[in-house]
């Protein structure tokens, strides 16, 4: 387990910061796409140590945050039905839906369980043939292979009591949508290392070329982020716009082709609404025709859902990096981790929650 020490070394971190200060001559704007990277940046205070004027813009890569309200409301409606075991990753349980959240539903008697892998949900279904086990499948390309494997496994076991609420999203369409916005300030991207471990980076090459924007595939440890930022700044300073790989220990250009095959078998690309951002074409995954029997949305008719967002929440502007959590009038007052108005205040990968946990206030919100 040496990786922890190697990638958290304070002396090396300071050396990278010094190099960054010597390299950066302009106030560059770099977006880290992934919420896991936001978490490390804010938790370690890396963004506060950047050269004067340089800014990290926190991107839309928190899967919990971009899961549409309608999906959440659907999950809660399904969980409230008798005989259902709703399974989910822990982060989803506190995300506010229109009326309530999954934790509160559980306290009122719904059978809501945290699982650590989708295969746990399949095992639950096999162990409880008299119950309907539903897995809330959210996330980016990173979690899609494991969810695909769960469906393939359930099919092999001929389970008729296992299904998924699928709300998968894809990174490249979101990056393209951000770059197409004329107000976009992002000058370089740190691509999400784990997404690229699955997908590789070939999809990012046309984006870098078309928008003339450097993209650095980056890991999640403090030194990964510092090195990724430095690589992006070097490109910006020298006028290059390539896809580079900082996360060489985990990512190769073509990614994990076995995992991609599993995803392609089980899912197909579809239009998807992103919470706070809106509908993006070809930006999500849904179950492919051959696996529709595992689609919980088909299996459970929950009637018409009427999702209503809290009008005060500016999650959309947060997720696109247009605003900071501390710009929000409700931040830290009407919206806290205890009483979140929107998803970014819930997940540890959410920008608002990361800011709040680090005690950032409007007076001290180093961008």
């Amino acid at each position: 387990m040496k990786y922890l020490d190697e990638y958290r070394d304070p002396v090396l971190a300071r050396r990278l910061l010094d190099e960054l200060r010597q390299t950066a001559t302009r106030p560059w704007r770099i977006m880290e796409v992934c919420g896991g990277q936001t978490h490390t940046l804010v938790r370690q205070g890396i963004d506060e140590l950047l050269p004067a004027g340089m800014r990290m813009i926190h991107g839309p890569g928190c899967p919990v945050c971009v899961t549409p309200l309608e999906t959440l409301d659907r999950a809660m409606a399904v969980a409230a039905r008798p005989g259902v075991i709703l399974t989910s990753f822990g982060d989803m349980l506190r995300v506010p839906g229109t009326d309530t959240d999954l934790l509160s539903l559980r306290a009122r008697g719904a059978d809501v369980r945290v699982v650590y892998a989708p295969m746990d949900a399949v095992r639950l279904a096999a162990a409880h043939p008299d119950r309907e086990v539903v897995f809330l499948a959210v996330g980016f390309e990173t979690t899609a292979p494991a969810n695909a494997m769960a469906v393939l496994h359930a099919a092999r076991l001929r389970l008729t009591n296992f299904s998924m609420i699928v709300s998968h999203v894809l990174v490249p369409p979101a990056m393209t949508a951000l770059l197409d916005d004329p107000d976009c300030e992002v000058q370089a991207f740190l691509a999400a290392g784990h997404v690229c471990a699955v997908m590789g980076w070939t999809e990012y090459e046309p984006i870098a070329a078309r928008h003339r924007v450097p993209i650095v595939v980056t890991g999640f440890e403090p030194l990964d982020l510092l090195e990724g930022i430095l690589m992006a700044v070097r490109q910006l300073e020298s006028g290059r716009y390539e896809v580079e790989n900082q996360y060489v220990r985990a990512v190769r250009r073509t990614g994990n082709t076995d995992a991609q095959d599993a995803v392609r078998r089980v899912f197909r690309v579809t239009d998807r609404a992103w919470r706070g951002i809106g509908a993006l074409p070809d930006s999500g995954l849904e179950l492919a025709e051959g696996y529709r029997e595992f689609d919980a949305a088909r299996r459970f008719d929950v009637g018409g859902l009427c999702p209503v967002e809290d009008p005060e929440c500016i999650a959309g502007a947060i997720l696109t990096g247009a605003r900071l959590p501390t710009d929000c009038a409700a931040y830290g007052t009407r919206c806290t981790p205890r009483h979140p108005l929107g998803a970014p205040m819930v997940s540890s990968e959410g920008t608002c929650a990361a800011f709040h946990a680090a005690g950032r206030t409007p007076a001290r919100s180093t961008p």
Partner: protein
Amino acid sequence: MSIQCPTPHEEDAVVLLGHGAGGRLTAELLDHLVLPAFGGSAGPLEDAALLPGYRELVVSTDSFVVSPIFFPGGDIGSLAVHGTVNDLAMRGAWPHALSVSLIVEEGLPLADLRCVLTSLGKAAQDVGVPVITGDTKVVGRGAADRLFINTTGIGQRHGRLHPSAALARPGDAVLLSGPIGLHGTTVLSTREGLGFEGDIASDSRPLHKLVRALAPLGESVHVLRDPTRGGLAAALNEIARDSSVAVEIEEGVVPVPKAVASACDLLGLDPLVVANEGCMVAFVAPSAAEEALAHLRSLPEGAQAVRIGEVVEHNPRGRVTLRTLVGARRIVDMPLGEQLPRIC
């Protein structure tokens, strides 16, 4: 006495698991519901209370609902002894007597019950504290989960050792007696079958000898606390609040075992909020810090004792901050609620 609804703004009409997790939700429940029902609290909430009318006698009670009841490094029986002995110790007391109450679910194998009670008996014997009274109740299947244990302890304070969560002072050194995160990650890993349980074991152990080792320092020892539910983050926040001081710790020196760090990384947990059952934090006067460390390190349970920070003047009172590995500062907040239910 009429009890008014103390929390009209609370829309959560039922108890959530997070209300028992030792974080902010627990504090809310205590402040808004539990304490008002008993006429309020006379001071900071300590691990153990002074027995009114007896200057040296200390009482503490604790219920144990850990699931599973057996885990690497201990079981619910030994934990029930260590937990209460440690709560007494955190007020500077040596344990004198324990009570043990059992709530057993119908259907629990007698062999399991015997195993737990043997372990409980051995733990009490090792500490040197007699079990002097107890109670046994059996409830129907489903009305409890296998076995719950309550222990209450009475202890006597060592001479001039009178630590309290309200006594931290600017300049105090913050000492930690050993590595953090072992108990919570072990129990979680065992319960959920996550596969880390081969590499780690709970740190459940008595700390009364460690506290006795500090007794010669007397009033220089300002605060003792074992960071159980809510972990080091909750313990430091409670001390900062109750003493109205600011605490700053150094991330790089807080000992986190590698297996704990990997488990926490994988599960998205912060080692600072994971429960411990075998280490303590001590706030001591700066002049006594080195001697206190030497005393702690003289015992096996304190062999890895380190200084992790100090009480600082430059931050707002009640705030806990951390110097990160890369040299920035961030606030260590009180954990909210449920991350790891039923770990003790």
